[in-house]
C-alpha cells in the first residue's frame, strides 16, 4: 500500500503538512514571544519612570548618604515616604550612582546573598550607555532588567535606576510551546496522513476504476471491451481514451492474427493435401519408372516436411496467442520412453553413437500421446545430432515427487552457458559447424518441445558443459487420482 501512488502522495502530503504546521508554530511562537517581550519592556520602563518620579519628588539631596548597605536591605537615609513609595513598586528595583547601589528594593533584599550580588554586578555591568537591557539568570529566577538614568543628578552625575521583572514566564512559554509542538509532530503527521489518505482516495478513484476495468479486460482476455469515459477527471479521461485506442489496435491485430492462423491453416494445408494426394496416387500407378518414382518420393518427403513445418508454425502462432489447448488422456510414459530408446538406438547406429538405457519406472501422466511422442522425439534427435561418433546417449524415466521425469543425457558437444537461454527460441541454431553435416531443420524442434511441455504444465530443464555433453530433463505432472480424459 505504502508504495502505491496513494500511499506515496499521502506520505508526501503528511510530511509537507506537518512541515508547514511546524513552521507556522515557530513563527506564531516567536511572534508571541516578541509581543510578550515588548510588554515586559513596557512595564519595566513604566516602573522605572514611576521610580524616577518618586525620587524626583522626594528630592535628590536627600540621597546624600548611603541608602543601603550590604548588611541591611532597608532604606536608611531615604525619606520614609519616598522609601515607602519605592518599596511599593513591584519588581526588583536598584537605584545606584556611578559606583554602588544606593537603594535596593525589599524584593532584592529578600534574594539570597549570591543572587543579590549577581544582580548588583549585572546591574553595574549594565551601566554602560550602550547596554541598557539584559536577561539575568539568578538561582531563584530569571530576570529581565533594564536601566535608565534619572533626570536628577548627584554631584552632576545622574542616578541609575535598574528595574527587573521575572522573565521566566516568557522563556517558559517559548520552551513549552516548542516542546509541545515537537510532541505534536507525530500527531500532526498522522492527522494530515489520515486526511490526505481519504482525500487522495477520492482523488485517485477514477484511476482506481480505470485499473479495475483494465484488469477485468486482461483477465477475461476480452479485448472487445472498452474502458468507460467517466468525464469526471480530464487527465484520466485522456488516459482512458488513449487506452481505448490501444485496445482497438490490439483487438484488430489479434483478430487479424487469429484470422491469419485460421486462413493459413486452410490456405496452406489444402494445397499440401492436394499435392500429397497427387503424389501418393502417382506413386501407386503400376509400372512407374524408377527415376520417376525417386523424384516422386523426393517430392513426397519434402511435402511431408513442409506439412510438418506449417503445423509447427501454426502451433507456435497459437501458442503466442496463449492458446495451450490439447487433447488429454492418461498416457503411460514407459512404453513411450521404450519406443524412444528403440528409435534412438536406430538413429545412433547410423551415427555411431551408443544408446544406453537408464532406469525406466512406470509412470502415467495426463496428456496428448502424439504431442508427447513429438516432444521426446525432438529432444532425442537433437541429442543424437549434437553427439559426435563414439559418444553415448542415455535415456531414463523416473518418478520425482509429483512429476514424471524423462532424462535424455548425451556426451555431445555441449551448449555454451551463454547459449542455453536461447536454445528454445525459434529458428535458433547452435554453431552449425558443431553438428554433423546433416540437414538440420529449421530450429523449431526445441521450441515445439518446450511448448508441448508447457501445455502439459511441465518443464524442460537443460544442464550442459561444453565438450562434456548435455542433459535434458523433461518433467511432467503425474496423473492424479480422479483425473481423466478431458480437453
Amino acid at each position, binding site marked *: 500500500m505504502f508504495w502505491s501512488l496513494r500511499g506515496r502522495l499521502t506520505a508526501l502530503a503528511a510530511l509537507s503538512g506537518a512541515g508547514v504546521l511546524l513552521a507556522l508554530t515557530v513563527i506564531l511562537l516567536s511572534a508571541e514571544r516578541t509581543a510578550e517581550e515588548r510588554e515586559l519592556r513596557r512595564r519595566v520602563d513604566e516602573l522605572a519612570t514611576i521610580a524616577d518620579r518618586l525620587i524626583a519628588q522626594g528630592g535628590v539631596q536627600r540621597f546624600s548618604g548611603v541608602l543601603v548597605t550590604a548588611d541591611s536591605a532597608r532604606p536608611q537615609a531615604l525619606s520614609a515616604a519616598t522609601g515607602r513609595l519605592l518599596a511599593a513598586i513591584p519588581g526588583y528595583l536598584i537605584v545606584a550612582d556611578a559606583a554602588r547601589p544606593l537603594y535596593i528594593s525589599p524584593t532584592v533584599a529578600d534574594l539570597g546573598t549570591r543572587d543579590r550580588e549577581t544582580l548588583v554586578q549585572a546591574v553595574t555591568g549594565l551601566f554602560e550607555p550602550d547596554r541598557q537591557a539584559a536577561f539575568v539568570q539568578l538561582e531563584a529566577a530569571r530576570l529581565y532588567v533594564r536601566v535608565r538614568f534619572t533626570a536628577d543628578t548627584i554631584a552632576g552625575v545622574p542616578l541609575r535606576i535598574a528595574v527587573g521583572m521575572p522573565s521566566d514566564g516568557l522563556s517558559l512559554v517559548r520552551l513549552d510551546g516548542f516542546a509541545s509542538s515537537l510532541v505534536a509532530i507525530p500527531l500532526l503527521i498522522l492527522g494530515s496522513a489520515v486526511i490526505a489518505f481519504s482525500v487522495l482516495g477520492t482523488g485517485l478513484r477514477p484511476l482506481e476504476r480505470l485499473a479495475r476495468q483494465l484488469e477485468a479486460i486482461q483477465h477475461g482476455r476480452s479485448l472487445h471491451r472498452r474502458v468507460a469515459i467517466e468525464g469526471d477527471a480530464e487527465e484520466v479521461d485522456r488516459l482512458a481514451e488513449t487506452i481505448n485506442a490501444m485496445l482497438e489496435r490490439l483487438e484488430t491485430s489479434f483478430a487479424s492474427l487469429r484470422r491469419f492462423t*485460421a486462413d493459413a*491453416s*486452410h490456405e496452406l*494445408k*489444402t494445397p*499440401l*493435401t*492436394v*499435392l*500429397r*494426394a*497427387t503424389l*501418393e*496416387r502417382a*506413386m*501407386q500407378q503400376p509400372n512407374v519408372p*524408377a*527415376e520417376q*518414382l*525417386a523424384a*516422386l*518420393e*523426393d517430392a*513426397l*518427403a519434402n*511435402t*511431408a*516436411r513442409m*506439412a*510438418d513445418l506449417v*503445423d509447427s508454425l*501454426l502451433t507456435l502462432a*497459437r501458442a503466442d496467442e496463449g*492458446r495451450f*489447448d*490439447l*487433447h488429454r488422456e492418461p498416457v503411460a510414459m514407459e512404453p513411450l520412453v521404450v*519406443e524412444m530408446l*528403440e*528409435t534412438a538406438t*536406430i*538413429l545412433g*547406429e*547410423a*551415427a555411431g553413437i551408443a544408446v544406453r538405457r537408464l532406469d525406466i519406472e512406470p509412470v502415467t501422466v495426463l496428456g496428448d500421446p*502424439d504431442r508427447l*511422442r*513429438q516432444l521426446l*522425439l525432438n529432444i532425442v*534427435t537433437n541429442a543424437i*545430432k549434437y553427439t559426435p561418433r563414439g559418444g553415448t546417449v542415455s535415456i531414463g524415466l523416473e518418478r520425482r515427487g509429483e512429476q514424471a521425469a524423462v532424462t535424455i543425457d548425451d556426451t555431445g558437444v555441449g551448449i555454451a552457458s551463454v547459449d542455453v537461454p536461447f536454445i528454445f527460441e525459434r529458428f535458433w541454431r547452435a554453431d552449425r559447424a558443431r553438428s554433423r553435416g*546433416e*540437414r*538440420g*531443420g529449421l530450429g523449431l524442434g526445441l521450441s515445439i518441445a518446450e511448448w508441448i511441455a508447457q501445455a502439459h504444465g511441465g518443464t524442460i530443464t537443460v544442464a550442459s558443459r561444453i565438450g562434456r555433453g548435455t542433459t535434458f530433463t523433461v518433467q511432467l505432472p503425474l496423473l492424479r487420482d480422479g483425473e481423466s480424459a478431458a*480437453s
Partner: protein
Amino acid sequence: MRVLVIEDDPTVGEFVKRGLEEQRWTVDLVADGVEGEALARSQPYDLVILDLRLPGRPGPEVLRNLRARGFERPVLVLTAQDAVDAKVETLRAGADDYVTKPFAFEELLARVEALARRPRALASPRIAVADLEIDLDSHQVRRAGQAIELTPKEFLVLEYLARHAGRVMSRTLITEYAWGYHFDPGTNIVDVLITHLRKKIDAAHDRKLITTVRGVGYVLKG
C-alpha cells in the same frame, strides 16, 4: 460397404475414392454440400467422409442437418483446422472422428476402418508373403516356419511392407507409418531399420524378400 465422400477438391476427392476402392469399398464422390446431404439421406451408406469447407452448404451445416434428421451412420470429417476447440466443435456437431489435412492415405484408411467397425483382423489376421508369415494379433513373425524376434518398430515396418506386398513403399510413407506424422529424423532411419530386418528375415535364406528401390524405398515381394 458403401461410403460417400463429400469433398469439393477433385484431386483430394479422387485420391480418397481410388484409395478406398482399392480396399474394396464402394465409393460415391460428390463436390457439393446440398447434393451430398441429399445423397446421404437417400442412400444406405455405411460411412460418410465430409469436408468442412464446401460450396453449396458448409460441412458443419450438412453434418448438423443430417444428425437432426436422424442420420446415424458414422461421419468422418476432413478439416484443415487442427486447433482442439475446432475439433471439439466438430465432434459436438455430430462427427465421429476427424482427419487433419494434409493426411496420408494410410491414416485416413485406419480411421475409416475403425469407424466402419471393420476390424483389420476380419480382413485377415495373418499376412503371408511367400514363406513369411505375420500374425497381426500376436505380433509373431515366422519365416519358413521359424519364429523371428522383432522389435516394435521392426514389426511395424515389416507389417506395412507386407500389407502392400509387391508395391514399392517410399521411405517417407514408411517413416510416417512407424513414427507418426510429426517426425523428421533428419537421417534415413528407415535404411538402418531395413538392414536389421534383412538380417533377421533374409540373411538365412537364398530367396530375398526385401528389395531396395534406389532413391525411393523398399518393396516386399514373394
